[in-house]
């Protein structure tokens, strides 16, 4: 077990990510509000650099009371990281694929101490 310094808290804006590297291990650390999450940048689908992808909210389809469809909307509560290789999306809070709970990112504990963010590997 060792701890890697990721960044000062103030240097990581909301919805921003930083990638830290330790040997062959690449970890993306994400800030959502006051929370931080760390995931290996290795997509479980094909091994893509998932943490180098776009950060976007989950998309929902809008239905009315009679179940008629009225296009899309973003769901602000569900922030996704999207693998740039093939588009696999993962919830940054849970690391899970929204449509397949068995497909998930490998996570690491994150600690905030003395104004800095650390990830434990």
């Amino acid at each position, binding site marked *: 077990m060792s701890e890697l310094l990721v960044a000062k808290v103030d240097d990581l804006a909301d919805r921003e*990510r930083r*990638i830290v*590297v330790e040997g*062959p291990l*690449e970890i993306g650390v994400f800030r959502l509000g006051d929370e931080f999450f760390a995931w290996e940048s*290795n997509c479980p689908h*094909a*091994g*893509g*650099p998932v943490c*180098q*992808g*776009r*950060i*976007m909210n989950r998309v929902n389809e809008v239905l009315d009371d009679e179940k008629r469809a009225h296009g899309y909307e973003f769901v602000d509560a569900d922030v996704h990281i*999207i693998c*740039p*290789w*093939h*588009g696999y*999306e993962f919830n940054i809070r849970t690391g899970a694929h929204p449509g397949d709970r068995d497909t998930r990112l490998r996570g690491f504990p994150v600690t905030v101490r003395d104004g800095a963010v650390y990830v434990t590997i």
Partner: protein
Amino acid sequence: MTTDDGFKRTYPQVDDWTDSRELLANARKQAEERQLDDVFIVDIDSHISDGGNWPEIMDYVEDPVIREAASAFGDGSKRGAFLNGTDGLQWQNVWGRIPHGQGLKEAVEESDLSRETILSRRCMDQMGLDYQVMFPNAMLFLGMHPVPEMEVHLATAYNRWLVERVLPEDTRIKAMMYLPFNNPMEAEKTVKRFLGKPGVAGFLVTSSRHKPVHANEYMRLYGMLEEAGQVLGFHTHLNWQDEYTSQLNRFISMHAISFVLCNLVHLTNWVINGLPERFPKLKVMWIESGVAWLPFIMQRLDHEYMMRTSEAPLLTKLPSEYMREMFYTTQPLERTNETLLAATMEAMSAETQMLFASDWPHWDFDLPATIWDLPFLDEAAKRNILGYNAARIFDLEIPEKYRALAAE
């Protein structure tokens, strides 16, 4: 295999301008973890940077009037000249989620080499490939061109550009020549003209078109290819304008069905009209629909054939038996259900009939690890699919270091 060319990863968010060596850095890791540099690998289907090359390709148009007219496009740049871009292609990047989905825009160093060769080398080095067979996006939809003779002008220019400009630059790069299939006589001329040129690996029909493959006017073409021992590839593409596919409202739906539909229609015609009996030595290859459709059409045609044999009188065995003598590329390999995939690969005799394809840099590309990591294949089968089948079919020279392991 080397990546020691001064390239350094930066780890920011990638976009469509990102150097593909960074985007594919994990592919290099995979290759090293699996020692894939010791495995002979041929990528049968890749598409590199064709849009950016289009102005250069236009200079190879042989008709002086058409060549001059190309300058009227793209504010004089010739970009996109005469192309009939297919509606829907702009959706490939999943609304910006897959940055390279609209093509690689990265910078390349100043060089006498073509951009095509530089980008192809980047891909081959990162994935651990020994050969890459390329084909351009821009040609995939020419079969539906509203001006039929334009297919001939553009095909000839593209084939010449490849043979004269790109293929001499690197012996690892190969290409299948575009057959202007809407004009059988011009397709025959294409074979005669480019057969045997260095780097020419075979000939290819883009399948999004409405000419039945069993039409009598093609028999001389097939005979030429069979006699020459050449591969005839059918490369699928999307067509959102067909009556059925026009009902689909999302790219995911269209992409799932339209590519496969090409192969289903053309392969059915190919088998039921007895083309394998007429040209038993012709090497026919079906490209880019994954493989999940194969057990469906095998069972379906066998079932129908047993009841309606008289409608397919040239056949002397089951349709599926002919299908097991043809060749299929892997990408995009459906891998969400390993039991089904294993059964599919057994049904199609994958060990001898399947060839690895990356389709790089398209949004649904596959890597060699896609095959190498399959738990139900033995190592010999993996090596055949990744490279030795291609060497056999395309008559590619296997580098010395791999020959000891080459399949019997």
